[in-house]
């Protein structure tokens, strides 16, 4: 356990860190002014891509989704997305079976590493999609995350 990191956050430097994070563009835009209502209201992968200004998303092996195979707690499922594509402009995370599929959207400014993470709420087992806009085109990668009742193991 990295106590130093924990202490740093507890000692008031946290505001500076968050401010830096915002300016680096790694916080969800949803938290701020540019609310793409249509995208967040969309129910499917295609609708989200359209609301984001595209038509379809192409499957890509250059997008890595880091998420648990089985969620430990459906209320806070850690999902991270990293992309090796050139000229990444934005990264969106979708939970297919959530009432509103789009869980988060990140604008990636030039010179920023395309590597974001957040925690999403999931009511049931679902595919999780990462949509990456890069060089004006849309790409997608998918991973299944299972949400179970628990118990009864080994």
């Amino acid at each position, binding site marked *: *356990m*990295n106590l130093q*990191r*924990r202490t740093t956050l507890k000692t008031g430097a946290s505001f500076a860190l968050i401010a830096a994070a915002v300016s680096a563009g790694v916080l969800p835009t949803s938290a701020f002014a540019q609310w793409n209502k249509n995208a967040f209201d969309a129910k499917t992968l295609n609708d989200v891509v359209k609301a984001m200004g595209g038509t379809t998303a192409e499957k890509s092996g250059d997008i890595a989704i*880091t998420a*648990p*195979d*089985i*969620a*430990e*707690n459906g209320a806070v499922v*850690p999902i991270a997305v990293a992309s090796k594509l050139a000229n990444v402009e934005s990264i969106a995370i979708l939970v297919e079976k959530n009432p509103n599929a789009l869980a988060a959207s990140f604008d990636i400014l030039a010179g920023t590493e395309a590597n974001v993470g957040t925690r999403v709420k999931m009511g049931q*087992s679902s595919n999780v999609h990462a949509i990456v806009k890069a060089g004006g085109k849309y790409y997608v990668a998918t991973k*299944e995350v*299972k949400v*179970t*009742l*628990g*118990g*009864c*193991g*080994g």
Partner: protein
Amino acid sequence: MHRREFLNILAIAAASGAALSSRDLWAADRATAFYDLPKFGNVHLLHMTDCHAQLKPIYFREPSVNLGFGGALNKAPHLVGEHLLKAFGVRRGTREAHAFTFLDFEAAAKTYGKVGGFAHLATLVKQLKASRPGALLLDGGDTWQGSATALWTKGQDMVDACLALGVDIMTGHWEFTQGAARVKEIVEKDFSGKIEFLANNVKTTDFEDLVFKPYTLRQMNGVPVAIIGQAFPYTPIANPRYFTPDWSFGIREEDMQKTVDEARSKGAKVVALLSHNGMDVDLKLASRIRGIDAILGGHTHDGVPGAIPVKNPGGTTLVTNAGSNGKFLGVLDFDVKNGQIADFRYKLMPVFSRLLAADSAMDALITKVRAPFEAKLNEPLARTDAMLYRRGNFNGSFDQLILDALMESKNCEIAFSPGFRWGTSLLSGQAITREHVMDQTATTYSHTTVSELTGGTIKTVLEDVADNLFNPDPYYQQGGDMVRVGGLQYTIDPLAAQGKRISDIRLGGQLIEAGKTYKVAGWAPVSEAARDTAAAGKSEPVWDVVETWLKSKKRITARRLNTPKILNGGGNQGMA
């Protein structure tokens, strides 16, 4: 060999239809030579796993139903009975056949006696450590849970026994149900400088910092050897999350590859993974991670006689699984020449307590640990007419007993019991003692529950557990057996899609209705609400319910197993 034993062997062989040869009998007579395993190579790993706190010798019946599908169809570990014997070249009617299969279980158990027991295991470990200088003893976990004394001493009996046994390295699963603070206390105090507790996949939920050391690098006979630990990835899902609220688990392939690469870069010539993933997960992991020489696995309690080679982009990884309940000790020898593994030998040795004299120091320790509880443990509660066991994909007879007790005591038409794979076996005619009941029920959350569930919820529960067992991707499996069900009949199609495996759910011949409410008894709930109910004294532990029921019956007749109708099981070698 005693004449009685000789006659029993004849009887077993005759019953099983096996041809008797003088060679078999000669082999049986050389019982004392059973443990002579010539030393091979220069790197030696001794592996025990999932002993579930069984300090004393016990009976343990291997499963007759252990289904595998897809890539796991008709392959180890999804082979039972004759199929397993055939795959590994073990002769029926032999001591090994008894250790690895359920065949002729009762007759063979009487002939060969009990298995396991730390005093007997200690003798074997000493013998192997003497013949293999530098050997490391690895414990795959599920060591501090499974018995009355482990529960009552908060795992201390097992901690002391493992220190005395000379365990060098361990990882865990049920250990975590002692609570995070207790685990830390043992690892940092009792184990300090003696046993390394390793887990590459346990991190804090906030910053994802490692909670335990991920791997260790040891010099063995001039060869740098890395051992990586992998705790059970689904601990906070399969068991209550409130025991380790600040820790996150998971398989974490990327971290595993990084750790293997780091160990290699620091000079490791042999990299072994001490894993509590379960064998199906280990087999998949072995096909995807480069640079692991062997995965010494547990969790799924598969007593697999051989090491399974798995190809991956980096070469070949051996995968083993060393059974449960102290019944086996795995011995993996590598011959490392010029920094390369030239060859290996693997043997999973059954621990027969009659063949291995009890180690006196360990025996004394166990006697001392049990002394305050001995009278309580040995109290007979009833006598069983028929064999009692648990292990298998569906209801075992001891589970059926628990379900019957729950339904009758709680006045419920339906009962659920978790698909645990631990729990010892009893032979027909044996007295059921309090210790035996605790062997089936001793967890830190064994409260009973009575719930009003709709038919829809009941189906969801069955589907959810079925997917944990039969999801075609091992990474989505949790490694337990199917939830045991009392009262309800159902049909299961393991090959169907998630949510569509269970059908024809009936109660008393009538299909259950999705919207109708049913009264369901159960135990070992994972929710915090259930814990709080129990803490408020509103729920009794399951062992009390079973004990009261046993005492009222005195004699337990053979249970009628409530097993489901299984579709697509034809030709499956995971079913006898």
